[in-house]
């Protein structure tokens, strides 16, 4: 799958490894989580209301469209969160399991 975002410069940075929907993915140190995810897949989440996949909008923490779930049940705002090694994101709604993640 071609990444959504296109890197134009600053590619000589250390790699970071994360999981997206259980699949291993690579990003670069200094990427936001949003950029990191959109280097591998073309969306961040599914709209709650059936209108399809979303990939963020404002990139400045204003629109709140880029909140993603981690497999541990946490919520991260992808455009204002720096990607870290070991992050594990799901791009689909976690169904009825989220409230049992204490």
């Amino acid at each position, binding site marked *: 799958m071609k990444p959504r975002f296109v890197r134009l410069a600053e590619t000589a940075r250390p790699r970071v490894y994360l999981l997206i929907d259980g699949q291993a993915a690579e990003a670069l140190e200094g990427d936001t989580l949003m950029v990191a995810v959109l280097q591998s897949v073309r969306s961040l989440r599914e709209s*709650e209301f059936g209108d399809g996949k979303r990939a963020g909008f404002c990139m400045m923490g204003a629109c*709140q469209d880029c909140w993603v779930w981690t497999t541990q049940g946490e*919520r991260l705002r992808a455009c204002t969160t720096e990607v870290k090694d070991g992050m594990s994101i799901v791009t689909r709604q976690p169904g*009825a399991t*989220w*409230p*049992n993640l*204490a």
Partner: protein
Amino acid sequence: MSALAADVIIVGGGIMGASSAFFLRKRGMSVILLERGLIGQQASGVNFGNVRRMGRPVEQLPLSNRSREIWLKFKELFGEDAELLLNGQMRVGFTPEHEERMAKYAQEAKDFGLGMQMMGGKALRERFPWLGPEITSGCYAPYEGHANPRLAAPIIGRAAVREGAQVFENTEIVNVEKDGEGFRVNAADGRTFRAPVALITAGAWGNLISTSFGEPVPMIAKAPQMCVTEPVPYAIGPTTGALSDDPDQGVYFRQVARGNIVIGGGGRELADIENRRAYVNPRRTMIKLKNAPRVMPAFKHLHIIRVWSGIEGYMDDSRPIMGPSARVPGLYYAFGFSGEGFQLGPGVGEVMAELIHTGMTTTPIEPYHIRRFTNLAANAA
């Protein structure tokens, strides 16, 4: 300017006034409903949205049951959906005293069809795995539910209009006066309205009008403190409320079909009825954030996206004013529901219509008669 006239004038367009207008029309009486702002904008539109019987004083359960019957036919009767979800209601506790309280109520109210079941902490968590480990007991009432308070009263208001009620929004009232055998209501814009019967459903402002008729009641205006989370996948069926030793520390929540979780509790602030302002105290928001995870640990992963408040009328004895005036023939009241009026709304409307039309009602509302404050009036005189 000639006055507009009808059989009944209703002052106050919340859920009580809108329902009364609807049911009076069903009985063939002509109705004028006057509302300072928009239908359902005050307490009716900002409350938690619980459609429940459990927890009400036992003497209120017949009225609550009557109202429930109407809720079950909401769309059929009023023409639009108020997002009623009937997935039960649950109260949970952390101490033996909490368990005692819940068990006592379950016993007192056992004959009113609520189907309440007391359950221990382990059984509760088996059934509702999202409940927290500190909960020791709970009472589950499977038939209760919740609905959307922003929609309900406006829907009933529109239904009343379709039934032929004359509804005047954006119509501020200056006063209600006795005029011979009947009443004259004067609006700020100069219009007057006349009727032999007046019904005051003015919520937190009801006391201003009852006082003008020599019937002051001990009521204060309070501001509920509400907040709501972002939408998350639907998983919490019953409306859930936690008992607490300090009433200001209790929390309760409900998840709507779209996924947002509405959270109330943390106490109330005083509201300003003169300027029609009510604010959320950030401290009370923090109380909810702290206490909600004790009931459901997964709350710690979520975010609240908005807080709001509004103006509700609270009676000193926590009982509403409902029924005829103690002093003025043709004058009726239904206000002061003390933060518990939403579920009662349709039933109150039906009962007040019955009372006004026939002179009596089959539903017991004697405890709510305004005459219980007659001594107050006498002392004030």
